[in-house]
């Protein structure tokens, strides 16, 4: 994945949808339920981040500059 504004904008959309779901749930039910749903999303986001980072390091050998890179 190339890191640029386009990639960051995708995260604006993801956080926007996640935030809207938390706000919607809190307003429709109780703030506690919205908070719990927010916590679930934060934990899921952290898990995704850790997995992405591990995969990034695992594949680093075959990327440009890595010892196994073949142009």
């Amino acid at each position, binding site marked *: 994945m*190339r*890191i*640029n*504004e*386009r990639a*960051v*904008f995708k*995260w*604006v959309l993801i*956080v*926007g949808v996640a*935030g809207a779901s*938390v*706000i919607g749930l*809190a*307003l429709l039910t109780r*703030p506690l339920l*919205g*908070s719990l749903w*927010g916590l679930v999303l934060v934990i899921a986001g952290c898990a995704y981040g850790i997995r992405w980072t591990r995969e990034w390091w695992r594949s680093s050998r075959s*990327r*440009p*500059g890595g010892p196994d890179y073949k142009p």
Partner: protein
Amino acid sequence: MESASVPLPHGAGGHAAEHEHHGPPEANQSSRIDRQTLGILLFIISEVMLFGSFFASYFFLRVVVNPASWPPQPFELPVGIAGMNTAILVSSSFTIHYALEGIRKGNKQAMKLGLALTWLLGLTFLFVQINEYVHLGFSVRTESFGTIFYSLTGLHGAHVFIGLTLLTAATIRAFRGHFDKAPEKHLGVEVPGIYWHFVDIMWIIVFATVYIL
């Protein structure tokens, strides 16, 4: 300090040796990310940690101190106005994205329009927030609630101000014809754009946490 130039054989290319590069070698640069983008990403990571400490204080005061109601009586937060302000800031992310998509396709008019709109939306957000502060009815010294409310929203407001400063520079440069289609020729818009998206993402989290939950 040792020179980076390679000594040439005696009599061969003596003139060329005079024009060789002296001093430290060129810095290594990743092929996946340019140094300006890497710089702003590292800065954003440090900012996330700063916001994290403020959120930790907020949740400590709210959950551990556990007042009878939040916000404490008789204070009320203007959720409607803040919601409208959220819509304004989220829209500004779309306009900066429009500006960058424009310049990627070589459309400088789209870039100028997108940047100008983003700047105006950001300024509107800041004015609405200052107006909100004026009419809130409590100050930073009003209980721990007032302190953490102003600290968290004020920290974000400071970031909007920094983002607006970056956007001002980018917009002036855009109108003076500084940017072009090639990726390395519009980094001056790309980097403020990434920062602006970060400011937007943080506000969504601040708004949901402080005003709604």
